């Protein structure tokens, strides 16, 4: 997109929408993180407080997101749900990144038949659709939080492994690696001290981008009734339990949890896109998802 050509929207706003998008992403993420971190310990409110006289009230000033079928405040429920979703997503993304980095680094650093066998395994795993494999793992080990985390981690490490392996292969041909090897460094030392630090930026970006994916995966599992137990309601659980109210014509218990799933996804994608542009300004990336 050429910056010289300014659309009317940009002229009105006085700066490029790119900057606006980054700012919006920062604000959304800040609000989300603050709400998720601060509301549960600080607010003296019970998300489980049932008030049958107030059940299924549409959004109002007292209840901005409305109330659910037993009169619980949906805004509070959504904040708690987002907290669960974000935490499960972050832990699962971290686990997937660790697995992916370890496997990718092993394949890249050892090379030869280890590389071939490992990458064949990665190809095999990636020919099973993610959600299906995830459903299978969860079905066999449920219920609980850890099966869900395992399901996400076991299905999402593949792309990280590929990224890390190709980064390591390109690093291996650099002169400083040759220098380290001719200086007598062991394979372990070369891998840990010279190769792995080089892949941290790429692996870190992949990990951040994986958080929304992991949240999506978790919410899909929870929606299908295979995810988190009902007392640890995530956004997916909220949508699932709102199905009954939806069929009675009440849209708000379904709408808001879904919106809260979309907003952080877009914000994280916007931030990662901006970060990528900073790293390589020549390749002006589109908003990556």
């Amino acid at each position: 997109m050429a910056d010289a050509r300014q659309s009317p929207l940009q002229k009105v706003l006085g700066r490029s929408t790119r900057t606006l998008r980054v700012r919006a992403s920062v604000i959304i993420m800040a609000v989300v993180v603050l709400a998720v971190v601060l509301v549960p310990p600080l607010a003296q409110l019970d998300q489980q407080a049932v008030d049958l006289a107030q059940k299924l009230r549409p959004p109002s000033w007292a209840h901005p997101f409305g109330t659910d079928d037993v009169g619980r405040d949906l805004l509070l429920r959504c904040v708690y749900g987002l907290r669960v979703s974000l935490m499960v997503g972050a832990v699962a993304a971290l686990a997937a990144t660790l697995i992916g980095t370890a496997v990718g680094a092993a394949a890249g650093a050892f090379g030869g038949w280890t590389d071939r066998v490992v990458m064949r395994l990665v190809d095999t795993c990636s020919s099973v659709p993610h959600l299906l494999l995830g459903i299978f793992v969860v079905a066999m080990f449920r219920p609980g939080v850890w099966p869900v985390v395992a399901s996400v981690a076991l299905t999402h490490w593949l792309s990280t492994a590929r990224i890390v392996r190709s980064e390591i292969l390109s690093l291996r041909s650099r002169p400083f690696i040759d220098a380290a090897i001719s200086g007598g460094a062991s394979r372990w030392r070369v891998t840990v001290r010279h190769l792995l630090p080089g892949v941290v930026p790429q692996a870190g970006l992949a990990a951040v981008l994986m958080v929304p994916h992991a949240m999506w995966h978790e919410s899909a599992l929870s929606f299908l009734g295979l995810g988190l137990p009902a007392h640890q309601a995530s956004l997916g659980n909220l949508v699932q339990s709102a199905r009954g109210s939806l069929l009675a014509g009440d849209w708000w218990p379904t709408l808001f949890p879904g919106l809260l799933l979309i907003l952080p996804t877009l914000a994280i994608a916007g931030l990662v896109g901006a970060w990528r542009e900073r790293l390589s300004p020549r390749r002006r990336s589109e908003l990556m998802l």
Partner: protein
Amino acid sequence: MDAEEVSRRLPWGAMGRMTGRRILSAVPVLLAVTFGVFAVAAASPFDPVKAYAGTAGLTASQADLDQLRANLGVDQPLVRRWWDWLSSALTGDLGDSSVLRQPVADVIAERIGWSALLATAAFAIAVLLGTALGVLAARRRGGWLDRCVSSAAYTLEAAPAFWLGLLAIWFFALELGALPAGGLTDTASDTVTPGQVISHLVLPAGVLGLSQLPWFFLYVRQGVGDALDEDPVRGARARGLAERTVLTGHALRSGMLPMLTLIGSRVPELITGALLVETVFSWPGIAAATVQAATSVDFPLLAALTVLATAAVLLGNLLSDLLYGLADPRVGFDG
């Protein structure tokens, strides 16, 4: 160039060799996936005897349970069970589904047609709408239409398909009352008529198509936009051709053809979407059966469907590589 000539010009030999190689390499992949499925099940705390017996297992005597355990061969070693399953699967016997109370092969045969219908309709929607919007957006990149549709596409990409499906049910089935909320036929009718199927297909196919749409749209936008900056288009403009001809005849053709061939590689995303959409709309397809099998830990059905999905993904990849090689002869059929 008539059809016969086209068929004579196709590189049948190279395509056949590629297909053969892919089938050969698919065999170890599928074997590994079946073994993986059995290994995961063996590592899990789940007891197939209890799953098979269901509620009857609570009152059954220990002797009956032991008999059942022996019949199911649960105590055999993992490799032995896997081999037994594999050898009977090759003869067409995939075992019995405990949740649907019918042979797994029958479940697949009954349901796969409905899933194929849904997938085809969804792809048709995604491709047609994605192409139209993509060309319009690429024509004026950075214009208001491009901005609106691109933002909508990114938002749609982030939106979970089940949530879109529920909102669609709320709006079209409950608020407007225009379309049925789910199932294949009206509840009162016991025969399947084409008219009913079509009216029940609109919402699930629309939502599944919408969830695939962002990818198609962004690809066409990128492809056509890049093609518009290239020499053939500049040449066409210099020759004074109408903008319409330039757009559809030159830019769309070179930008779109590679994209269309990639449809085959979208099978995993399609399966993921179908798992959610079929469940939301109670569509009697194979993906909904997978979810049912998972919720009630119906191992024979789940194992067969996982392998089937893997085979579908491999087939989609092959198809897309073949078409890509045809669309762009520089790529060839070496993979």
